């Protein structure tokens, strides 16, 4: 019923992208997203696409696996695309059918929009496909470190995240076991109206909560016994280190943003070119 999410969607192979520093990957993703939203024309978008393709090749994750991540947002994508298509105003009317008016600008904008969202989802998916949640947590902790000086509990937050990650598979196992046990006692979670279904969850939820509290208490004891006393005087074993991969990564994404900005400034907007073409014909 519930699948293994320990690794999120981590795809276990060794590659350039897998070995890069999670902090750089996080920053790279942010840079990539910024670039996508900065891009005002198809040249910028094409540059993003180029970087995305390179990243996919460098990650050695099968294309199908990356595309599968788009499936989750497909409905949203289609829905917003259709809205855009119908309600985007413009001056070149293509279709007029009852109250529906489709303009050329609408078509172009929709195509642009769909590609942008498409690339965005694929890029984000690539991060989770090549980085384990643990690495991500380490990366986030490291990036947030400066906040320590304004008394933001970075260490505690990171510990909470890492413990949560650690217990997800355990609690999923537990949930599966409880579901099976109650099913064996004739519980039915799959039929009946919404109220019946909500009521049917009670025999799962209560044992699960009780078990979570029991585990929390035992974990607390075990942490105490292992000398945990907050972040004071604490050292950290794992240190993230920048390598040559990260330098390349950094350069590529710096180039990406610069490229997009340059296109925005210097390249002629592609839209007028298309209008021109249509007018001539």
């Amino acid at each position, binding site marked *: 019923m519930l*699948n*293994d999410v*320990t*690794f999120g969607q981590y*795809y*276990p192979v060794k590659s350039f992208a897998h070995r890069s520093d999670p902090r750089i990957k996080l920053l790279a993703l942010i840079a990539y997203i910024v670039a996508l939203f900065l891009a005002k024309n198809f040249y910028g978008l094409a540059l993003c696409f180029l970087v995305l393709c390179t990243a996919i090749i460098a990650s050695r994750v099968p294309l199908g696996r990356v595309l599968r991540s788009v499936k989750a947002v497909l409905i949203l994508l289609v829905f917003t695309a259709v809205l855009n298509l119908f309600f985007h105003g413009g001056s070149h009317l293509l279709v007029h059918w009852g109250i529906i008016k489709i303009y050329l600008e609408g078509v172009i904008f929709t195509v642009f929009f769909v590609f942008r969202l498409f690339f965005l989802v694929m890029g984000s998916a690539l991060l989770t496909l090549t980085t*384990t*949640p*643990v690495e991500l947590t380490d990366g986030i902790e490291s990036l947030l470190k400066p906040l320590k000086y304004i008394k933001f509990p970075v260490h505690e937050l990171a*510990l909470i995240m*890492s*413990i949560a*990650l*650690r217990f997800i*598979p*355990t609690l999923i196992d*537990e949930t599966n*076991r*409880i579901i*099976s*046990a*109650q*099913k*064996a*006692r*004739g*519980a*039915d979670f799959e039929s009946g109206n919404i109220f019946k279904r909500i009521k049917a969850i*009670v*025999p799962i939820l*209560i*044992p699960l909560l*009780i*078990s979570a509290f*029991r*585990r929390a208490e*035992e*974990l607390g*004891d*075990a*942490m*105490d*016994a*292992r*000398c*945990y*006393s907050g972040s004071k*005087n*604490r*050292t*950290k*074993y*794992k*240190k993230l280190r920048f390598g040559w991969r990260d330098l390349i990564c950094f350069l590529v994404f710096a180039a990406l943003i610069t490229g997009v900005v340059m296109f925005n400034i210097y390249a002629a907007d592609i839209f007028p070119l298309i209008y021109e073409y249509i007018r001539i014909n």
Partner: protein
Amino acid sequence: MPEPTSENVIQFENVKFSYAGAEGVFAVNGVNLEVRRGEFLSVIGHNGSGKSTLARLVNGLLEADSGKITVLGMGVSEGKNSLEIRRHVGIVFQNPDNQMVASIVEDDVAFGPENIGVEREEIGRRIEWALKAVGMEQYREATPTRLSGGQKQRIAIAGVLAIKPEILILDESTAMLDPKGRREVMEVVSRLNKDEGMTVILITHFMEEALLADRCVVMNRGEIVLTGTPEEIFENGEKLEAYNLSLPRISEIINDLTLGGMNLSNVLRPEELAKEIAQNFKDKGIENAESPADKIADSASQHLWDVSVKNLTFTYSKKSPFATKALKGINLRIDDGEFFGIIGHTGSGKSTLVQHLNALIKLPQAQKRYRAKKPKKGKPVPELPQITVGEFDLANKKTDFKALRASVGMVFQYPEYQLFAETVFADVAFGLKNFKKDLSKEEIEKAVRDSIEVVGLNYNEVKDKSPFDLSGGQKRRAAIAGVIVTRPSVLILDEPAAGLDPLGKKEIMELLHKLHREWCNTVIIVSHDMDEVAENCTKAAVISNGEVVACDRPCNLFKDSESLFALGLDIPLTSKICEELKKYGITINCDCTPKDFAAKVLKAYGGGNA
């Protein structure tokens, strides 16, 4: 054994402790105890005897009401030393899952040293050393959740070792492990004690583990009632029973044989006992002896509720990089009326197998979306799995699976964790109401009353109580009542005795025999305890790596000990002694229970005399 003059590392002086909310009831009541440096001390006692409380008092997780605790010269009761004491006293708890903070082994082992501010390079060295000490060095980058119970617990020990404590306390750390995991952990602990000179306190209710220690302490109702070497402790059979403990099986056998006129000392290892038995035979001038094998009468069953499994395969997380084959073509037949055992260690697929029997995992053909695949050219058509239980065909979509589940009861591991309702009555009635919608109030009340009473609880006393207010053993009984309330014909139990103390185990097995006689045609237990299966089951199947490697009556099953060892499985104690005795030319054919073994040995012994 350490010198009696050696220094005491732990000292308890008249220590009393009661839990909040239960003031006046002392969980630890006037304990005086000294632990010497380098000593291996075992603490035994029934559930709730105060032995775990003792461990928590040592490192200040709990604070004593009165009395004095000194650890390495520091007073614990003063409170302020607790962090310093915890650096020197490591505790490994019962559930390995609930002790780990990180999702990667080395991060978890690093947690302790990080807390006490050890330098980075030194932490790396400590991780290496600690993992090596527990034999897990090749799992440094592994994910703990994917390891076996024994491996996880060894990681937990490594996590404690990395702090470099002088004293290691194991608080029932083997209770949730299978025999293989238990052996792994005990080997590590013995080695740490012998080679590293670490002081070890082992809290356990496995009598067999307590034997490994230099000194043994018995606790009963918060008090220390016996102290001595394991040999001395286990001489006191009647006393131990009064403290709700059982004798180790080997001591039981020795008692029976001594009563039968043999001259034996209190040895604790099967090979030693075999040697002594052989000596007795020799002294009497018996050279070769053989006890006749019993003829096994086939039980006349009606075959109404036969269980048949054919060609069952099952893969977890199919089509993902983590796909694991749990079952690889299981063929099994369980006759109506058996008390059947399914043995195998954790991850062998035994739990997956039994979940198929009441369609908690449905066969592919019985799933809604199933469509028969067209056979590919040139390839043989794969044979589909088939399961029948009585009249139910589990491969058929149209089977009434609800009726099946009412007839095939399933008690999961630690069933008390599935209790949820406000009262015991409501919890037990839950299953009944689900399965049979048109019962009158009186019928429900009668069925619930019957099933609460058959599991040995007092109906009027518990029916309005919250199930969470019951004691551990009572909770498990209430949970079993909640399954048998529909009067299933086949009852399946996954590790029914897991986590209970010896007496609790005995009582649960007695309950299952009672249910087998009075309520359910067939009882199937899943277990990793060879002795438990040998002593209780009429027939058993051994599952290893998703395959049935043997299926027979226990007396035949354990004859081929070598192949079982090869699979990493254990054999019952009596079989071990039988194996050893063969070396001396003595063949004993018994049904693997200690009673029968002793009787057969005496028969051969007396028979030689006549």
